[in-house]
């Protein structure tokens, strides 16, 4: 019998509760965030939910002048973050600088997750990150 669960929806349900979760591989301990059915470090597929610290480092960035389809048309600054638990994660930077070039020499920059509602109609919440310096 398959051990695959509705991980994607479960992750979004946790986010709606204000929790930033990852799936931990029971075999090797690696974290998958966002979640997948199998561990991409060892290939095993026996996973359990764990709450993540929300700590991360910004490693690179890009400004989207074409908005945040389909959730909005405003310019946003997107960050690529290395989570404290290991995975890379891409999400919006909250209150980022107007001139993002000033971030370049300061990388990596500590950041903390904040979970926000991105679409009320579908009760969708998603992580964003606030830079800590």
């Amino acid at each position, binding site marked *: 019998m398959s051990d695959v669960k509705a991980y994607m929806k479960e992750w979004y349900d946790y986010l709606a509760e204000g929790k930033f979760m990852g799936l931990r591989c029971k075999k090797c301990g690696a974290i998958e965030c966002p979640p997948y059915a199998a561990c991409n470090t060892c290939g095993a597929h026996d996973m359990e939910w764990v709450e993540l610290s929300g700590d991360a480092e910004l490693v690179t960035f890009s400004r989207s002048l074409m908005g945040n389809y389909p959730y909005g048309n405003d310019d*946003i600054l997107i960050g690529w973050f290395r989570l404290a638990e290991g995975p890379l994660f891409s999400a919006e930077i909250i209150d980022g600088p107007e001139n993002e070039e000033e971030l370049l020499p300061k990388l990596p920059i500590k950041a903390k997750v904040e979970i926000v509602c991105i679409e009320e109609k579908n009760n969708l919440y998603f992580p964003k990150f606030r830079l800590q310096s």
Partner: protein
Amino acid sequence: MGKQGLQRGVSIIGAAYSHMGVQATTPELKDFSERELAATAALEAMDDAGITGQDVDAFVLGHCGPNFYAKAMSEAPFFADWFGMHGKPGWLHDEACATSVFGTQQAVAMVASGMYECVMAVNVGINTTAPLASRPPFLRAPIDNDFFWEGMYYTVEPAYDKPGNAGVGEAEAAIMGYLKQYGYSFDDYDRMMVDYLKNQNTNVLNNPKNHMSQSFEEMAKDMDCDSVDEFLLSDIFNPRVGSILRSRYLGLACDGSAAVIVCSDEFAKAHSLKTPIRITGMGAATNVIRDWGEYPMSAAKKSNGEAMGMAGITGADIDYMAIHDCCGAELILDCEQVGYLEPGQGIHAASQGRLAPDGDKPINTSGGRLQLGHPAAGALGIEIAEAVHQMRGECGPRQIDKLPKTTLISCYGAGFSEAALVLQTM
């Protein structure tokens, strides 16, 4: 990668690409459906090889987003007769901008395995108009910008990779890693791209398949700019679409097709009119938007490394490199990672004239995506065909001075997929 590699020699004996353009207005494409456009490249490639569709065992059809852009599903059988290949098997696939390389790899694998003797990888895209649903596909309506970009956004994994500005954000993320590593600025990147654009403008004006006939000097003059630099660095004529990317750095959307015919050594000996170009290395990988935050990127390293390892070459052996030059990311990432350009120096290569046909490190002599155009599926098929013609000495005014004997084709496609080929003259 399999330990045994390719089970027998496979070579390209025919390669071609169509005129690039806009289906509704460019004379060479006017009133074409995807069938005629694919046939244009396919039949020219067959002529190049000295064969017909009767000689080809199978075809691999590359077409990006056919359900969305062309109102078509499972369409390979619709194309067979257009190639003179009635009843022959066809495979349909889509790896976005990397489609042609993946299709060629599939064709090579089919021949190398002994399944077939001769397979054609043909790739087509009409990106400026869409057929009316369930009508003969010469009846078409214009695609507006919103519709085009809606399809592009489907190349971003909607489960987790939001936000993502398809075709821009991931490239910028990777480029920032390079700029940070070597202490370069946003202006340094602009300088690289402006000089690369000039390089490609010269190439494309020497390419009879282009649909642009203006030099940047003429465009600048028409827009009352005092110089090409003023024109290309203008927020009006080349506006920003991201932190560093400008609209002209993205690629010129157009319609077009490309075809590559591969075969066994025995078939080449019996049929080929010209020098067969051997495919000696192949590599591939996938990644998603968040992986572009890793510098250097492991997926590109895997793809290029596998291909070069299979061929037994290093960067010093590469005479010509063809890349997916949208955004300029590959210019400074892949070209340096494989050893074609020196670490930290790729950003200067265009400005130094090294990438031109008479330079020591030529790249994309066709005019590339930024000037010849980006027909989606056929994008790197153009570069494979161009490489074949370069290696045979057939490129006329844009011929590389020193005839290349080893070419690395390296690309990525939205989604993302990475793929690489090594071509060698044996």
